[in-house]
């Protein structure tokens, strides 16, 4: 180490120097990406470059799906058809009831002078791929900015809330599941109307209702639905069922564990909700500030 002969060939900086340069570059990227939001366009560019590769990677699976779709049996199809038509009849009855209720609700709201509930439009998407990383609970869907997807939209399946779109690329989007660590959903208890916030814990099959007081009325088997507070999630979507309520004197809050209703493993198709929440009219001098605030919230 103390005396080395001069190298014969010029090779540029030593590996150690290069390691230091590239490590510092990576660390700088990490900090910039974690603290600031400057790199979204770079990410989008790389995502676009990766898109053909990703499509190619999913071709075998899609081919297998298509082939197995082709070889379904007659009996299976008949069974499924019978099941679906029965379900359709049942749903139709429920839908009639729902329409009557909605009309009644509108009428009541008009009578009371309340604002009407906003309509929710849905866009059918399919799961492009699920996460390959044991750390994050995320999935990618096959719609992006080209299909009008925006960050912050809510993703549901036929059972309940799946998650929220956190990043949009031209042809794909990333969805953070409600089980993703520190993903939050404002909810209320259907039975008692108690409001709270559900937090993801970073592993599958469980979310936690945090910061509920000791004497909370929430019980096991209660259904939690979105409360609509905060304006991100439309109200009334099923989120989770309460699995256990622990009251430990050592903690300030009750420990409430819930099981999310929606499962990404069961379906290939999801719905992305567009929910144009219109703010109530404001006095004219505050209007500019109000629209500004609504923009920031999205």
């Amino acid at each position, binding site marked *: 180490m103390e005396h080395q002969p001069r190298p014969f060939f010029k090779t540029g900086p030593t590996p150690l120097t290069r*390691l230091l340069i590239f490590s510092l570059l990576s660390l700088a*990227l990490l900090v*910039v990406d974690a603290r600031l939001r400057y*790199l979204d366009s770079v990410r989008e560019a790389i995502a676009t470059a990766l898109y053909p590769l990703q499509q*190619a990677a999913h071709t075998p*699976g899609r081919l297998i799906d298509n082939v197995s779709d082709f070889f379904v049996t007659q009996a299976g199809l008949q069974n499924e058809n019978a099941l679906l038509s029965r379900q359709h009849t049942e749903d139709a009855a429920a839908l009639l009831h729902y329409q009557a209720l909605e009309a009644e609700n509108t009428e009541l709201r008009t009578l009371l002078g309340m604002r009407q509930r906003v309509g929710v439009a849905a866009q059918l998407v399919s799961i492009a791929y699920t996460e390959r990383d044991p750390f994050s609970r995320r999935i990618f869907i096959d719609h992006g900015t080209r299909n009008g997807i925006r960050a912050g939209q809510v993703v549901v399946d036929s059972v309940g809330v799946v998650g929220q779109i956190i990043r949009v690329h031209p042809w794909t989007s990333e969805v953070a599941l409600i089980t993703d660590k520190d993903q939050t959903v404002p909810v209320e208890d259907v039975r008692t109307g108690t409001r709270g916030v559900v937090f993801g814990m970073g592993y599958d099959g469980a979310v936690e209702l945090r910061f509920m007081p000791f004497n909370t009325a929430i019980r096991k088997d209660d259904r939690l639905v979105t409360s609509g507070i905060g304006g991100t999630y439309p109200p009334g979507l099923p989120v989770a069922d309460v699995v256990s309520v622990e009251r430990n004197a050592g903690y300030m809050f009750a420990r409430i564990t819930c099981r999310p209703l929606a499962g990404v493993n069961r379906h290939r198709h999801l719905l992305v909700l567009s929910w144009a929440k219109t703010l109530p009219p404001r006095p004219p001098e505050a209007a500019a500030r109000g629209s500004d605030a609504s923009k920031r919230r999205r």
Partner: protein
Amino acid sequence: MATTQPEEILLPAKPLFILVTLLAALLINLLPWAGFSMWFKPDFVALTLTYWCIHQPRRVGFTVAWILGLMMDVAHGNLFGQYALAYCVLAFTAITLHRRVLMFSIYHQVLHVVPLLLVAQVLILLVQLATGAALPGLQYFLGSLVGGLLWPPLAVLLELPQRLKTHADRV
């Protein structure tokens, strides 16, 4: 193993072949791994990168490692730079050790490759922990061990195009 005997002279690897193998590894990484198989999934990009850093340290080095790392970061949708950092360290250790590793037979090389892959995984784990992820179980490291098992077939496979063609009329 016959493939690592010192008297065998290999043809230089074509840059296009290196690029294609790295892209293929990226493609395999992007395959829809799900559920249980996720734990056993070795990082094919890291494995191929290690191979080329050991066998072609002049061609494949930090720049390639870093760019591949960025691609993996975007594909995983996590913070920029964690795979880039891990792959750079991987490239550094592989380049520093390449003369030593090549002294051994393919099966003994596994004992060098597994620690390299583990170091890369630990770096990713550290970045994740620093950003507040929960500690995964020990099965998180299974991927590197499986990667070590895949090293002998991979090494043979990637060496095939560099073998001298022993047709008498073509030499």
